[in-house]
């Protein structure tokens, strides 16, 4: 049986017991005895909330053992337990209804308690058969190991718990800064194309895993996509589309399904997971998946399909300058409008058809003049060209145009080919004077709007716009209010009619 350690005692019967600065006795290792695996999980949950599991000791080992009197126990051994973590880990073990022992080898004695603040020693070592002998105040257990489980295996087998409220739940349409998504093989290219079209910054790769029905042949199985700064408008698409599973990164290589959490705080379990492996925790019934080696993600710009070529628009670029040798060479090229993947292009103008001008009127009437002052408009036969000096806002209709160069407007999602520099485009198309050259679509001819045709957008200008297209009536003019009315009294008022009623 055990005996209380006295103050100043330095020699002990139990091997490898030492005294710390306070006079408290501890062995090299710590051992915790739990009656069920659930209590062991509770212990890990509590311990991981306070510290990293790698701070507990050099190695964690879980054993299933049977006592001499027949009960089955779960033992957790922490080898070379850290002195700094002992108090926290003992507190977690007590909360999880586990019994704590200290010692080394096969002999462990109860840790200190209120009855013996400096700890316990044993009267004599027991010779009972078993892999480990536990000495308590009123008991002595000899246990025989029946099986072993690594902490990693335990973590992988636990089921995720749904987060019902709070920022990590699915109740708020808000996406984390970095989001991982696994997509079934067939859906992957479509999603990549969609993300690329939306101008989202993302990386992707294919996860391969052995197929059991093809003789161990390796084939693509899933796409893994990492999305940076995902816009919240994609919330529904990414989180609720069948075939897609969104993951939130909780550790360097550990991802947990968005809207769920692991029973153990995985942030504290960095050292448990192999460095060369990515682990995906999915909700039940899907089991956790380990991907080894770490997948190398590629920018989705390199993965999407190349855009198709559009129909040529004939916008002749003026001949290039004669070469320095003096030989004049007339070289012409045609600019074509083609679809290109948008890269976060900001629309600066809109070509609003006349049928939608009434929308512009209604929005314009409700906006302050200071906002309208940022826009210039030109009335064209095909519609109203609205040009935003500081970008286009508040007008989400019409054909949105972006600036391919200063004064050169192409539809958003389109570009000009051949891809000449912006400076050359500006020079050759002559937009330096403030005029605009608009390429309305791949099928239509470009046109030029002179600077003098652009007028400041004001409410009364909007009022002059007819809803039906008639170019002859589209004369926009800005009427400035006159000077302040100035009261002038007639010098002398004769009042011959004062009595008049």
């Amino acid at each position, binding site marked *: 049986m055990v005996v209380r350690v006295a103050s100043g005692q330095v020699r002990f019967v139990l091997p490898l017991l030492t005294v710390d600065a306070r006079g408290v006795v501890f062995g090299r290792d710590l051992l915790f005895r739990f009656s069920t695996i659930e209590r062991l999980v509770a212990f890990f949950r509590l311990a991981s909330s306070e510290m990293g599991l790698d701070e507990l000791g050099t190695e964690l080992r879980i054993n299933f053992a049977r006592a001499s009197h027949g009960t089955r126990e779960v033992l957790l051994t922490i080898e070379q337990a850290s002195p700094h973590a002992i108090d926290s880990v003992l507190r977690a073990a007590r909360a999880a209804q586990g019994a704590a022992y200290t010692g080394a080898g096969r002999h462990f004695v109860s840790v200190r308690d209120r009855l013996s603040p400096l700890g316990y020693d044993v009267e004599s070592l027991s010779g009972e058969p078993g892999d480990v002998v536990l000495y308590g105040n009123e008991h002595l257990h000899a246990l025989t190991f029946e099986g072993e489980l690594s902490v990693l295996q335990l973590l992988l087998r636990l089921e995720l718990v749904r987060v019902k409220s709070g920022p990590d739940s699915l109740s708020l349409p808000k996406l984390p800064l970095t989001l991982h998504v696994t997509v079934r093989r067939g859906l992957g290219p479509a999603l990549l194309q969609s993300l690329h079209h939306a101008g989202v910054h993302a990386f992707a790769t294919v996860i391969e895993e052995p197929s059991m029905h093809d003789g161990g042949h390796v084939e693509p199985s899933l796409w893994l996509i990492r999305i940076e700064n995902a816009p919240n*408008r994609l919330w529904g698409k990414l989180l609720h589309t069948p075939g897609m599973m969104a993951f939130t990164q909780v550790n360097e290589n550990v991802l947990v399904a968005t809207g769920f959490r692991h029973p153990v705080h995985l942030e504290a379990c960095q050292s448990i997971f192999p460095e060369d492996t990515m682990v995906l925790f999915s909700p039940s019934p899907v089991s956790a998946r380990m991907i080894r080696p770490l997948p190398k993600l590629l920018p989705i710009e390199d993965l999407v399909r190349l855009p198709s070529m559009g129909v040529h628009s004939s916008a002749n670029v003026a001949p290039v300058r004669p070469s320095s040798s003096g030989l004049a060479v007339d070289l012409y090229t045609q600019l074509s409008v083609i679809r290109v993947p948008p890269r976060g292009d900001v629309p600066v103008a809109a070509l609003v058809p006349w049928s939608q001008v009434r929308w512009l009127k209604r929005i314009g009437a*409700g906006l302050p003049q*200071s906002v309208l002052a940022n826009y210039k408009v030109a009335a064209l036969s095909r519609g109203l060209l609205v040009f935003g000096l500081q970008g286009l806002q508040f007008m989400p209709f019409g054909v949105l145009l972006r600036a391919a160069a200063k004064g050169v407007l192409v539809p958003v999602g389109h570009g000009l080919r051949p891809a000449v520099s912006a400076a050359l485009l500006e020079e050759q198309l002559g937009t330096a004077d403030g005029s605009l050259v608009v390429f309305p679509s791949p099928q239509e001819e470009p046109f030029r709007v002179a600077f003098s045709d652009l007028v400041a957008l004001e409410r009364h200008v909007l009022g002059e716009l007819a809803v039906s297209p008639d170019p002859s009536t589209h004369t926009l003019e800005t009427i400035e*209010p006159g000077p302040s009315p*100035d009261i002038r*009294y007639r010098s002398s008022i004769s009042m011959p009619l*004062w009595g008049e009623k």
Partner: protein
Amino acid sequence: MKAFWSNFALPLVAGGPLQVSRPIWPKTFAKMVAQPPHQFGASSILAAIMKHRWAIGRRLWPGFGPPAVDETTARLAVATHNLLSLGHPSMQTASARVRDSVIGFSLELAKLGPPPTATAALERHTMLSRMGELERDEHDLHSWLGTRSFVGGPPPKRLTFWPKLRKVQVTHQKRNWLRELGVPNDARPLWEALGEANPLMEALDPSRLDPPVSWDHLFAVLRFPLLARAVSAHLVEQGLAVVAEPLAVALFVHAAAKEGSRPTATSDAVVFGIAFLAHMFWLHVTTGAPGEPGPALAALLAAASDEPWLVLPADVRAAPPSAGLTEPFLTRVYALRLAVRENSTFASEAHATVAQAKKNSQFAVLLFDQ
């Protein structure tokens, strides 16, 4: 009559020298209304008046059509003329009986009541919109004989002859008629009747001191959604802290009135008032205008932040989150709630106003319901 339209009514809307002569009496007014404009050769002048009024109206509402020069126009113009004529030096010395006669007749003309339609409100406003800009010349003539003042025109030339010999010196200044000179005391009912006939003038200038802001008058014009949106856009341009504070304080006063004591003392009206102020703040946030709301508006929005239906129009609330119409606004409103202390100056008034509004949770305000 032609002189009246060309020398008074046209400058009243177009700006420039505004000739004010003796008051117009009922017989002259009756003749003016009965006789078609082309008969006295004023067609071109009336066309010019119409053009300027149309431009004024379109600055406020792009869909405003050409306004007609009708009897209402004539009544407002004549009443305004008579109001201004009361400041004539010759009228200062007139007897109280004469002044009362002028005011009484003009009051009859100005008592048009609240405008029945949004178009009518705009048409009336285009006639009187520049009242706040009216200026008057004032000259002080100093000579060896002393100092004399001349208002509304230069001093006679005979008094400025031989300036060196007679040591003549003239100082000149322009004074705003409404803010610096003010309405004559006896003409206050006339001024209030003009304000009631043209509530847009009050709505577009809530920071004025006289007359104080009254939601009774504001409801007469803000009940038209297109005008409410236009007015809020105009006010946001002037700065939220300047214009929203008097409106919020006036709403606290309005909400404290016993329900039913006045036609507009209802919970519907309070709901609308909160929604209008919230819309101004929404516009302020959405357009990225600089500045922060004052304490009264902040307290009101903070108190109403628990009720999204009060601070967001139903159609904006129904917009998808990706539209970005609500999130920046609600973020600012929730920030206000954290910033406003429970014991701040307007906290109790704001809570009482919101409590009054909560009595009617069925009243839905729409941003684009017209």
